[in-house]
């Protein structure tokens, strides 16, 4: 913006009487607006300095192209020319990048003031966008088309040029690892025959910098402490359409771990106890990840012992002679810092206490970073928020810290309606409502209700996780279920009510006590069904006490990368009511992440035993191996079967035992697709019947083979993290099975992270 200074005659430069101000040249901007920027009052004299400030203020407003302030006698004449406003902004010549993505980025918008400076800045922005996409040769020039009454159209003309690719990547100075191995480490790829499709072979400046970082991490985690990337110079090919990139590196020596010691001058800390937790052994290849892992374990131990202000500081001494590093973990007293306030923001429907109760730290307590990180983990695990970031900032004093919790809520409920009309069953309505954060109180409320359909399932479920403000979860479940299951030719009807409470019994252990009162009946068993089931055709009351102990170290355990889940439960039926049996179930699951935390290995063993106190077990009590327990088979596809009956009903089993080994790993696809691969191997069996007589009481028939028969399945799966939830596609093949088992080679389930 060009402006002419005030034409002062140097003689009397001091001040000008202003009796009136005349403004001209403005069309859209009003005189009042200009006066408000000038801030000069009529009737008062103004010095040269004040006039100059007035001009500056007018220019800084960014509304005017030129500003002239000329004192004529005692009148001040202000002439301005306004910037035109932009009528329309568009971009021509762009094929690779769409208008829709580019225009919102620009500062010049339609209806705003046009200024050449912002237009230039926008052009540079577009050029930068193209060079990020690998088109370094792209050029962008802004052009103006004048329109009626001082409006302009702004057009950005783009000349894209073609993509510049990386022809060859070479390494100099690498002895320990080959060029081919290092090419797999970095992200940029050499242009192969699929060059036009693959993005990662286009030459992008930032990606080369990122590659240097990847190389450093690769070498560091293998003990090459002195590794350096000396240079990564890209040279342009003669035809200027490709680049040669060569990385010059100096590897240095591979260092092993020398002596590992733990030292502390704090009276309340016993150094050996902390030393036992270290995961670093003498002679092992040195890696920063192991140091970090040990620090995490020691901090968690300190947290468990309730010690405050303890900081773990690794002190490393090099001895180049025998190429080892001595590591000393010093437990010292950290700075005395307190949590002044915990402020929670962004919780539009969730109540403040639902988030606040996830913190074990209370305002005024000593600040323990580990405790705050664990609390952040618990807040995310609630599943009410799409993002929940917890960070700390300086409080009112140097020793005070304020914990800021910024959450963004996601949808936590579902409401489904279904109306179906069957020729015989007539119209039927089904409603199911589930809300995991009912009224923002953290309570779960769900009810489903359907009439008329064969599998009627009307149930109400309510969970209050913090009953009476304590860490005590109260659950109420009432259900009325009828099944006309397609796996067998009989109907079951169960009506029941099950209150339960759950509470912590130790740092990682929780106990769930429940009582169930239900009426289970088996009805209209048709003629072709096995006699064993026919004898169960009756209805009986069950009144059972249940206890379930679970021990989970995956989140709070010492090892950050893995953990153990143990569940052991018993149901004792016979506290009143007709049926008397003891049902024991158990699950042991261990998982760990290996290969730089990208591959998860999980091993699970699950078993169940149903021992009758009086009489024979009924089919509704016995176990069935669903596809969630043993993959690769139909709902009741496995287990003893009455082969003599016409439709060979599955009879279930009093005992089951299954082992599942699985691993999931990245498929190399970009992160945002959220797709991972998996392999699994399941082996298990379902066996044991009290009543194996296939004939009637009068005429005993052949006995059902209810012996222990192993089944095993091998399979691969695809894990896909979609918006509606984590899906898991399982493709399986049975290795060992009985000929009467019903296989299911493909299955789509929700991958539960229980």
């Amino acid at each position, binding site marked *: 913006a060009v402006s002419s200074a005030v034409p002062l005659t140097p003689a009397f430069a001091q001040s000008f009487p202003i009796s009136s101000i005349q403004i001209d040249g403005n069309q859209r901007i009003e005189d009042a607006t200009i006066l408000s920027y000038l801030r000069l009052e009529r009737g008062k004299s103004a010095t040269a300095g004040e006039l100059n400030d007035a001009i500056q203020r007018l220019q800084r407003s960014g509304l005017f192209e030129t500003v002239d302030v000329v004192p004529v006698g005692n009148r001040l004449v202000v002439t301005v020319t306004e910037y035109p406003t932009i009528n329309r902004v568009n971009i021509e010549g762009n094929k690779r990048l769409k208008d829709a993505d580019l225009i919102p980025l620009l500062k010049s918008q339609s209806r705003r003031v046009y200024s050449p400076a912002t237009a230039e800045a926008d052009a540079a922005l577009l050029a930068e966008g193209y060079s990020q996409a690998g088109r370094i040769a792209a050029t962008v020039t802004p052009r103006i088309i004048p329109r009626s009454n001082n409006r302009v159209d702004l057009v950005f003309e783009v000349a894209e040029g073609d993509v510049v690719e990386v022809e060859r990547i070479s390494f100099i100075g690498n002895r320990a690892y080959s060029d081919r191995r290092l090419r797999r480490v970095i992200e940029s790829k050499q242009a192969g025959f699929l060059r036009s499709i693959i993005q990662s072979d286009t030459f992008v400046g930032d990606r080369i910098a990122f590659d240097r970082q990847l190389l450093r991490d690769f070498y560091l985690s293998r003990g090459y402490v002195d590794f350096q990337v000396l240079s990564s110079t890209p040279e342009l090919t003669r035809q200027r359409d490709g680049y040669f990139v060569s990385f010059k590196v100096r590897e240095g020596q591979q260092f092993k771990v020398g002596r590992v010691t733990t030292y502390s001058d704090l009276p309340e800390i016993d150094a050996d106890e902390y030393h036992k937790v270290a995961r670093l052994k003498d002679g092992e290849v040195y890696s920063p990840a192991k140091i970090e892992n040990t620090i995490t374990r020691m901090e968690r131990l300190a947290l468990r012992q309730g010690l405050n202000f303890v900081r773990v500081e690794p002190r490393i001494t090099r001895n180049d002679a025998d190429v080892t590093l001595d590591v000393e973990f010093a437990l010292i007293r950290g700075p005395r810092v*307190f949590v002044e306030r915990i402020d929670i923001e962004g919780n539009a429907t969730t109540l403040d206490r639902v988030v606040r109760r996830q913190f074990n730290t209370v305002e005024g307590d000593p600040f323990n970073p580990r405790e705050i990180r664990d609390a952040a983990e618990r807040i995310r695990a609630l599943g009410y928020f799409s993002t929940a970031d917890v960070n700390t900032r300086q409080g009112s004093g140097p020793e005070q810290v304020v914990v800021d919790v910024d959450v963004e809520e996601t949808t936590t409920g579902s409401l489904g309606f279904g109306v179906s009309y069957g020729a015989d069953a007539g119209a039927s309505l089904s409603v199911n409502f589930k809300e995991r954060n009912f009224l923002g109180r953290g309570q779960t409320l769900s009810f489903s209700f359907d009439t008329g359909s064969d599998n009627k399932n009307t149930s109400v479920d309510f969970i209050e996780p913090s009953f009476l403000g304590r860490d005590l979860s109260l659950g109420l479940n009432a259900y009325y279920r009828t099944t006309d299951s397609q796996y067998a030719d009989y109907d079951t009807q169960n009506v029941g009510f099950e209150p339960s409470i759950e509470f912590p019994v*130790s740092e990682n252990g929780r106990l769930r006590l429940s009582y169930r009162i239900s009426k289970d009946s088996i009805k209209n068993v048709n003629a072709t069904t096995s006699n064993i089931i026919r004898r169960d055709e009756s209805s009986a009351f069950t009144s059972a006490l249940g206890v379930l102990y679970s021990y989970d170290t995956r989140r709070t355990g010492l090892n950050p990368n893995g953990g153990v889940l143990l569940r052991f439960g018993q149901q004792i039926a016979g506290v009143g009511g007709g049926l008397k049996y003891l049902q024991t179930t158990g699950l042991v699951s261990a998982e760990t992440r290996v290969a730089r935390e990208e591959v998860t290995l999980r091993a699970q063993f699950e078993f169940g035993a149903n021992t009758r106190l009086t009489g024979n077990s009924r089919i509704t009590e016995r176990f069935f191996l669903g596809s969630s327990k043993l993959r690769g088979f139909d709902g009741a596809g496995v287990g003893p079967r009455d082969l003599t009956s016409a439709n060979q009903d599955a009879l279930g089993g009093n005992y089951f035992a299954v082992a599942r080994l699985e691993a999931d790993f990245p498929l190399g696809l970009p992160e945002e697709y959220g797709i991972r691969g998996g392999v699994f191997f399941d082996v298990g069996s379902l066996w044991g019947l009290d009543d194996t007589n296939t004939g009637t009481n009068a005429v005993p028939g052949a006995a059902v083979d209810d012996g222990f028969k192993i089944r095993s399945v091998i399979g691969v799966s695809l894990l896909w993290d979609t918006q509606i939830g984590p899906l898991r596609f399982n493709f399986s093949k049975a290795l060992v099975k009985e000929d009467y088992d019903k296989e299911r080679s493909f299955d789509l389930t929700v991958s539960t992270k229980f």
Partner: protein
Amino acid sequence: CSEIIRNHGYIPIEEDLQSLTVGVDTRGTVEELVGKPSSSGVLRGGDWFYVGSKMRHYAYKKPQEIDRQVVALRFSDDDVLQNVERFGLEDGRVVTLSRRVTETTVRDVTFIRQIIRNFGRIDLGEALGD
């Protein structure tokens, strides 16, 4: 079942407390020696209190305060330390809290509004329920 003990608040360690001299130390020197108080009196320039308590969490029982130490630093009007008093758990009174709450003008999100917000979303667990 084992109990879980959690410590809250902060009591300065014994040596620091001994180093305070009544009649000489002012608020500034006290703060350096012993650190900022957990909370203070209701009036501006009131006395300073350090509160440290031990909470016992046991199964389904209400968390219980099993130990509490309160160190009260009394200051004279010209901010000079006058007295150091100590209170334990036994000095506290069990107070039944009043149920009264000052009503606010802002309305509650109603059950109906929450239902509408979930309309049409499917819950994956049920849809693929095994």
